[in-house]
């Protein structure tokens, strides 16, 4: 993995190893938003994202002696974050499936209403919904690549899967999004967008 680390990360971890919690606080201030926003983008739940952030830094403290200070800290943090996201999302799925079914039945009629359609007219919402329908594997790669701006190699290390697998998940994730967004054109039939 990437050599030539941010030396101050290494120094701070060294201080954490000596029980210096202020150093941990500095690392927290440095990385909390990155970790929190990645967890939030994957789990789509603020409370869960905060729990994950908390767990990541407690793990950092527990495993401080084992962290290689010659490497960048960010990939390690992303690795723990995504692992915790996987655990949380799959646990939540298991427990909430039945509840979701009930909610689905209750709200299904109103979902088809014009008001609801209009509510979904926001482009951002449409794209976010499309992302939410991706498999967890594809969604995680999409978030790490597009939100965290990580390379395929870095994502490969973080998820502990071959680079080819990352490439494939990214490709199929993109293709799925492309299809879903094309199908969603009914929501904004006369509007196109461009970036400048």
């Amino acid at each position, binding site marked *: 993995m990437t050599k030539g680390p941010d030396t101050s990360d290494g120094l701070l971890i060294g201080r954490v190893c000596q029980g210096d*919690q202020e150093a*941990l*606080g500095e690392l*927290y201030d440095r990385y*909390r*938003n990155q970790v*929190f*926003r990645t967890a*939030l*983008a994957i789990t789509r739940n*603020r409370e869960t*994202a*905060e729990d994950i*952030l*908390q767990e990541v*830094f*407690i793990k950092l*403290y*527990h*495993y401080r002696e084992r962290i290689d200070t010659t490497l960048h800290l960010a990939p390690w943090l992303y690795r723990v974050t995504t692992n915790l996201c996987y655990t949380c999302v799959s*646990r939540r799925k*298991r427990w909430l499936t039945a509840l979701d079914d009930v909610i689905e039945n209750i709200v299904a009629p109103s979902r088809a209403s014009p008001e609801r359609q209009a509510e979904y007219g926001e*482009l*951002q919402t449409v*794209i*976010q919904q499309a*992302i939410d329908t991706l498999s967890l594997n594809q969604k995680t790669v*999409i*978030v790490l690549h*597009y*939100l965290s701006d990580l390379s395929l190699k870095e994502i490969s290390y973080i998820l502990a899967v071959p680079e080819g697998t990352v490439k494939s998940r990214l490709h199929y994730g*993109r293709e799925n*999004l*492309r299809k879903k*967004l*094309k199908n969603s*054109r009914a929501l904004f*039939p*006369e*509007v*196109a*967008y*461009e*970036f*400048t």
Partner: protein
Amino acid sequence: MNLHKVDENKFHDDNIDHLIRWALHDSVAGAEPSAQVWERIQQGIADYETATASAPVWYRALWQRLTARWLAEVGVHVLAQGDVQPAGQGRMYAFDMRAPMSMVRIIEGKMPVVRLVS
């Protein structure tokens, strides 16, 4: 990067990367964790330190054995919970509240292997 409406009735395929990036960034823009998270981290560390410092000798030995292998996380849970009971023949029972369904674990004495038994 700014997103603008244009008058064409076209969906630009080339925009897909920009759209995904924009939507993701926009969805979490400005989101920050509450101040309580850092307080909870400090509390979690304090609990962990207390558990390890006050643990009996056999707890600490178990902890060292677990951390020497891949079971460090279980060791942390076990010590943090403080709920391990020796069960004879070198085995110990551990009750981990954080595990799904509150599964009971058996930690083998000779080899630190954890089996989920229920």
